[in-house]
């Protein structure tokens, strides 16, 4: 059959390959090479604000690599603690999302079909409204004269407002709130495919509920747990909006540092070096995510 197409429409197959491939190559892959190149450049007060690492002379092209940006990041403890802070916040909030999301996904997968569709819609709906506005909602709830403090003072539990906004706690709340749907959906997709008869059999054999969960349900849905965790953890490492709006001076996150290097300091080479190190940290998680994504698709194709 394929020969038939090649005979009549040799261009069509070629076009379907070329358009998306070239688009993603030019606008997604090639830019990383440019970021890498500029991370070795020197910052200049010019437009664009960096030096060229290639200089053409009579004898040929000289490549001048400047490692200063990377050394700078090692010497200044700000960068190291921002990377560590981002990883810590990403790991803890991924775990919290799993803790809240797993029971929700489990319960949804066991509803009857109509209720299940409505529940799924209710999970997805918030993520179709603005991310920024959902983060903004928490400012009104957490600030000193916000809903939580007003309520606690009204019932007399506290006399002074608690400082919640601009603390790490507020960042955790914001991250878990905005990323929870990304955890629930892959978990649900796995749980709903789980044959209820397996659990039935385990119960019939006299297993206790927690034992059925730990040695049957949990391992059988591992792929969903990993996919959901990667969907939350990887973007959170580079998160900018949440630490900017909800965090305080003591919540250092690398996405915010990159933003400030670029927009406030106009230091494009250092911002590029920050991005390259972040990418290196995320290569392994992204590879794991890709592996599970493609395995999932092959399984459904088979």
């Amino acid at each position, binding site marked *: 059959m394929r020969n038939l197409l090649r005979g009549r429409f040799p261009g069509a197959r070629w076009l379907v390959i070329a358009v998306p491939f070239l688009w993603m190559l030019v606008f997604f892959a090639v830019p990383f090479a*440019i970021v890498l190149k500029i991370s070795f450049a020197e910052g200049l007060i010019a437009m664009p604000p960096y030096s060229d690492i290639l200089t053409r002379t009579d004898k040929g092209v000289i490549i001048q690599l400047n490692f200063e940006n990377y050394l700078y990041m090692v010497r200044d403890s700000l960068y190291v603690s921002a990377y560590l802070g981002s990883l810590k916040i990403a790991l803890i909030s991924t775990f919290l999302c799993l803790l809240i999301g797993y029971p929700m996904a489990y319960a949804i997968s066991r509803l009857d079909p109509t209720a299940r569709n409505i529940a799924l819609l209710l999970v997805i*709906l918030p993520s179709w409204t603005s*991310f920024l506005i959902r983060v903004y*909602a928490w400012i009104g709830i957490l*600030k000193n004269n916000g809903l939580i403090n007003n309520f606690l003072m009204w019932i007399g539990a506290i006399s002074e407002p608690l400082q919640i906004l601009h603390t790490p706690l507020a960042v955790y709340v914001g991250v878990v709130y905005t990323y*929870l749907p990304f955890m629930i959906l892959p978990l649900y997709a796995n749980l709903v495919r789980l044959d209820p008869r397996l659990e039935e059999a*385990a119960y019939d054999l006299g297993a206790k509920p927690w034992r059925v969960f730990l040695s049957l349900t949990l391992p059988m849905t591992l792929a969903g747990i990993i996919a959901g965790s990667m969907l939350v953890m990887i973007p959170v490492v580079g998160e900018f909006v949440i630490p900017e709006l909800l965090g305080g001076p003591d919540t250092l996150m690398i*996405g915010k540092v990159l933003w400030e290097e670029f927009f406030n300091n106009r230091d494009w080479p250092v911002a590029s070096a920050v991005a390259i190190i972040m990418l290196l940290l995320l290569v392994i998680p*992204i590879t794991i995510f890709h592996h599970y994504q493609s395995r999932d698709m092959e399984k459904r194709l088979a």
Partner: protein
Amino acid sequence: MSGAGRNSRFTLTLLGLGFVFLYAPILSLIVYSFNESRLVTVWSGFSFKWYGELFRDRQLMDAVWVSIRVAFYTAWAAVAIGTMAAMLLVRFRRFAGKTLFGALITAPLVMPEVITGLSLLLLFVFIGELIGTPIMRGMGTIWIAHTTFATAFVTVVVASRLTEMDRSLDEAAMDLGANRLKVFFVITLPLIVPALVAGWLLAFTLSLDDLVIASFVSGPASTTLPMKVFSSVRMGVSPKINALATLWILAVSLAAVIAWWVMARSERKRREESQGNDETT
């Protein structure tokens, strides 16, 4: 615990609490958009005045228009490229670089936005240097950036529909002598229309929602709605933003309910048709 396959009171309670967590902040946004007072969380009486203020804010309304236009063009481009990409991943057996292509499609799903934004900006500056004149940053560059990451999401949606599809119709048409291009437009395309609509809406909302990437690649003349909202939120809470949020939530909920209703109806129709077919055979 009553056993497998059903929910216990415990899991249902957790689900209910989860929904309270997801919807309480949204509800508080809506309630306080009707508040008379400038202090967002102190109630002083019902009023529509912030909605009036919202529509009188020319800069904000301009930003809404910029965002809607970018999102509209992004959605069409992402659906076109994403559908091709999905066909490529699901239907094309093997070609050089398929593994690379798979990685190029899944990585944007999780790539931190600051990295995508920075790298695209540096690309545009680099191209400007290559051709000798700087590239005008504005709606065009935002459209390219949004199309790139939205394509990845559309591809996932369309690919998952393609993998679920029954291929026997395609094969029958090809056995009857239709070429692949014709099979795609006459058989495959109508069957994946729901996925294309879902992908279009997803791309539209992703574009409408993006702050970080647009901030990197936009120029001085093109401020998108999230950029405007962000700069205003940075100054502190404002009931005007609550009013905007309420209208946004209303629009999305309405679209979701309609989409759900259309999907439920077509599902029912399909079920009835397949039952009809079963009876005749």
